[in-house]
């Protein structure tokens, strides 16, 4: 949204950098690039840095450490690309970083100075500005979430962009408990794609806040054909929420759940069990890590 708005103002002097962390969902790198480039006509540099991220995550199981490493690597990749652009085509003329800060973020920061009881510090720039002295453009900083959606409509953004579910920055790494490796990622990616597909088919995608799969490295016994199997567990998580501050699990019809479960066990190798997460936030969180 912010990018589209800024692009409208300054055309191709705005460059988007899209990093494939290797932790994106099925076909997400390609389809996002296509959306940005071909449909929204934005100028985008796509960087496939999957290997770098995977190397960073090797052997790491602690969720906080995962997040830290991904964040650090992300900033490194982004900064490299920005510097390359600055030294090349932009001829040293990059002066701004576009950021999609929204009104509630601004208010939270403002409240710190006042005696408000909702005191919170806010930091969303992840250490970048100290290294790179860009001024910020925050075109949405005066808007609320649903106002952003309204503006998006007026800007002519495709519906699929406007209703897309939120996805955490560290991506699938925090939906895959334990070590992140290519095999586990492939398993989760397949299971996740089935969840989203079935939810769409049942007409729930636009009604829910998020729908996704989580992969647990917990093995349990199964039986397929005449063989005993011993495979992992996939958690299906579907929640409704207005603002992610509170959320409740969605009471999906049994047949939708059954469809998801059957497909995952049959189509994703290494998975013998599917469970549905029936916890609300609070006390749980939407994501598992």
């Amino acid at each position, binding site marked *: *949204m*912010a*990018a589209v*708005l*800024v692009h*409208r*103002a*300054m055309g191709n*002097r*705005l460059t*988007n*950098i*899209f990093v494939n*962390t290797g932790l*994106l969902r099925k076909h997400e790198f390609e389809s*996002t690039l296509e959306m*940005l480039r071909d449909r929204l006509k*934005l100028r985008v540099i796509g960087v496939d840095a999957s290997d770098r991220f995977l190397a960073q995550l090797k052997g790491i199981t602690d969720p906080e450490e995962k997040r830290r490493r991904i*964040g650090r690597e*992300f900033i490194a990749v982004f900064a490299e690309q920005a510097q390359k*652009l600055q030294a090349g085509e932009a001829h040293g*003329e*990059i*002066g*701004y970083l*576009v*950021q*999609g*800060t*929204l009104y509630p*973020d601004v*208010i939270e920061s*403002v*409240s710190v*100075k*006042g*005696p*408000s*009881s909702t005191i919170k510090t806010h930091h*969303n*720039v*992840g250490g*970048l500005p100290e290294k790179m002295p860009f001024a910020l*453009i925050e*075109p949405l900083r*005066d*808007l*609320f979430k649903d*106002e*952003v959606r309204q503006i998006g*409509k*007026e800007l002519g953004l495709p519906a699929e962009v*406007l209703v*897309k579910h*939120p996805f*955490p*920055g560290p991506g699938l790494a925090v939906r895959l408990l334990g070590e992140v490796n290519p095999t586990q990622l492939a398993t989760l990616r397949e299971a996740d794609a089935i969840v989203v597909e079935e939810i769409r088919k049942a007409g729930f995608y636009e009604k829910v806040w*998020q729908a996704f799969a989580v992969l647990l490295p917990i093995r349990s016994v199964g039986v397929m054909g005449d063989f005993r199997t011993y495979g992992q567990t996939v958690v299906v998580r579907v929640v409704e929420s207005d603002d992610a501050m509170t959320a409740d699990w969605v009471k999906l019809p049994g047949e939708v759940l059954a469809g998801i479960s059957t497909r995952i066990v049959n189509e994703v190798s290494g998975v013998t069990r599917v469970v549905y997460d029936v916890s609300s936030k609070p006390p749980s969180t*939407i*994501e598992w890590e």
Partner: protein
Amino acid sequence: MTESAAKLAAELAGAQEQAGRMKAELGGVVVLDFGGQYTQLIARRIREQQVFAAILRCTAPVEEIQKLAPAGIVLSGGPSSVYDADAPKCDPKVLALGIPVLGICYGMQWITHTLGGKVEKAARREYGRAQLKVGCEGGPESSALFSGVPAALRVWNSHGDQVLALPPGFRTIGMTENAVAAVEDVQRKIYAVEFHPEVKHTERGTELLRNFLFRVCKAEPKWSGAAFIEETTAAIREKVGNKWAICSAAAWTRPWRPCWCTVRWEIA
């Protein structure tokens, strides 16, 4: 244009730029935040009427408020009692700018306390549903705030303190069973309500806010998506000149934090 007029125009332009505000945002409403849980909702409801609303902390200097050239000021609710040692306060000058003011809940108590009325801990605290009797001489129509609404309304309350004596110049325009629920000073254009017109559970709450915006403040409904896009792109164009900009598109997957914000790695 005479020299002084040109100078004034330049100064005005400078002031606007300094505040970083666009035309559609001027002449809106400033909501001063006393830390209330509904402060953002107040701003929302006002914007739904196509009037821009900006939330500033209650300690904002009067000059900062004036930069927005507001048509009205709303004082939010808040968790404190005016007698608390660290009770939040506005600059009392806010009430003397000649700009219409609407105090809500704590906002009402602070106005009463500041202008010489009396606020006390209520014998019966009111939380949740209450019945409001619009009670000014001449019926609802004689108060701009209640214009066009029935004489009895279901309202939503959340207060432990209440107004016992009105400041000079004020009159009561609404009562609930236990408390003074709405007051006005038409001369100074100061209005205050104990209940929360911004929550959906208050019957006709939006109409009360509309009455304040359009009958009292005479605000213009000019805040729209199209105006926002037009003015924002123009402002960016002017700001960046020939420079380039970059944006992290990683967050395309995260619709409401489309850019660099994704690096927050927050637990959703």
